């Protein structure tokens, strides 16, 4: 097989489904080069399977239950304490999840690979008094090693005092036309302040948001490079991480 010309090897690879190409890529360096230089692997066609899911309780105890098929359960660990280091014992609340990756407090964990990594300290929101919620953006098809975390500030439940030294008033638009927040990038391995330009109308004013402040009800979905966040006032904010909109 080593003696075959690259063209012949490539014509063999041309007959493989994406998942077998993904496996072949790991077999030898030369094969990886053939597959990559000819762009044979269409990662977007790789099958994403549901191998398991967590059921999270909404109460303060934050109970979580993991469900998986017996065949995958051996591989994927739903018991986070099995592979998290001892130091984070007791702090395994799942803040968010995205395509198989879990976001815990200052930690990202992958139950499929039983790996976890400690992150730099989570920042406070850019605006004082706002409550931070963190969302994970991860797409293994686009970039299996890379993920981002976005801090979405929640408008507090109490009225903003006219005298307080912050840039929003009760009748300010929310989200503002330039929305500045903290984003963590795993490639740069640091939190950065990033500003996103609002494309549509504001969802409302600061005053509209007060009543709906509970952090635990917040969810977001990450699809095709865009994070859709269920915001206060039941609006949905789309954040496109690649072009800051």
């Amino acid at each position, binding site marked *: 097989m080593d003696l075959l010309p690259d063209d012949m090897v490539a014509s063999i690879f*041309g007959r493989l489904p994406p998942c077998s190409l993904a496996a072949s*890529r*790991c077999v*030898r360096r030369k094969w990886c080069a053939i597959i990559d230089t000819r762009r044979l692997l269409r990662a977007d066609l790789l099958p994403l399977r549901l191998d398991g899911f967590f059921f999270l309780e909404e109460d303060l105890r934050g109970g979580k239950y993991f469900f998986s098929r017996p065949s995958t359960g051996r591989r994927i660990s739903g018991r986070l304490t099995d592979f998290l280091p001892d130091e984070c014992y007791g702090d395994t609340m799942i803040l968010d999840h995205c395509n198989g990756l879990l976001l815990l407090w200052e930690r990202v964990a992958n139950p499929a690979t039983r790996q976890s990594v400690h992150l730099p300290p989570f920042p406070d929101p850019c605006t004082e008094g706002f409550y931070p919620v963190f969302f994970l953006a991860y797409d293994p098809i686009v970039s299996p090693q890379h993920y981002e975390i976005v801090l979405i500030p929640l408008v507090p439940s109490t009225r903003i005092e006219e005298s307080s030294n912050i840039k929003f008033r009760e009748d300010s638009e929310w989200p503002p036309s330039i929305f500045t927040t903290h984003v963590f990038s795993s490639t740069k391995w640091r939190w950065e302040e990033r500003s996103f330009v609002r494309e549509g109308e504001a969802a409302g004013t600061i005053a509209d948001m007060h009543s709906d402040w509970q952090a635990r009800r917040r969810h977001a979905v990450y699809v095709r490079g865009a994070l859709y966040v269920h915001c206060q006032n039941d609006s949905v904010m789309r954040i496109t991480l690649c072009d800051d909109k």
Partner: protein
Amino acid sequence: MAAPESGDGNNGAARMVTLISSDNTRFEVEAAAASLSQTLQLTILDGGGGGGDGIPLPNVDSATLSKVLEYCIKHAPAAANGGAPNATAVDRAELERFDNEFVNIDQSVLYSLIMAAHNLEIEGLQSLVAKKVADMIKGKSPMEIRRTLGFPDPTPEEQAEMNAHMLEYGWAYE
């Protein structure tokens, strides 16, 4: 692919050509069968390979050439019919059975065939052998592929590299 003379010529006898393997074995075969090779077809069209001349094939040994010709002789009638659009289902099933049996061979023979099909540009045989190797790879993990194809066990360095690659798309085939 239409053969130049498909065997029912005026003199009633099929035109024959001689092919000479790298180890100097001579194979006499119908021109129609040898013409499945794009490389040979031009020479044969020019009238080469007949009589005592023979066409030398310095890249193909006799064992491989005999196997290649077995394929060509079996497939020549269907090829003469222009890819066999009017072949019966029975004919097609018979060819398929032949093909499956044909590639049920040692890997070393398979690789020689891949090289020969490539050098002689025999389209059908190229697809057949490529498909065979692809089938050996399908549905397997990287380690299983290595074992199936008889690659030596990875060195620690290669293993580390494999592990790094598996982190990327490992979820797709595990």
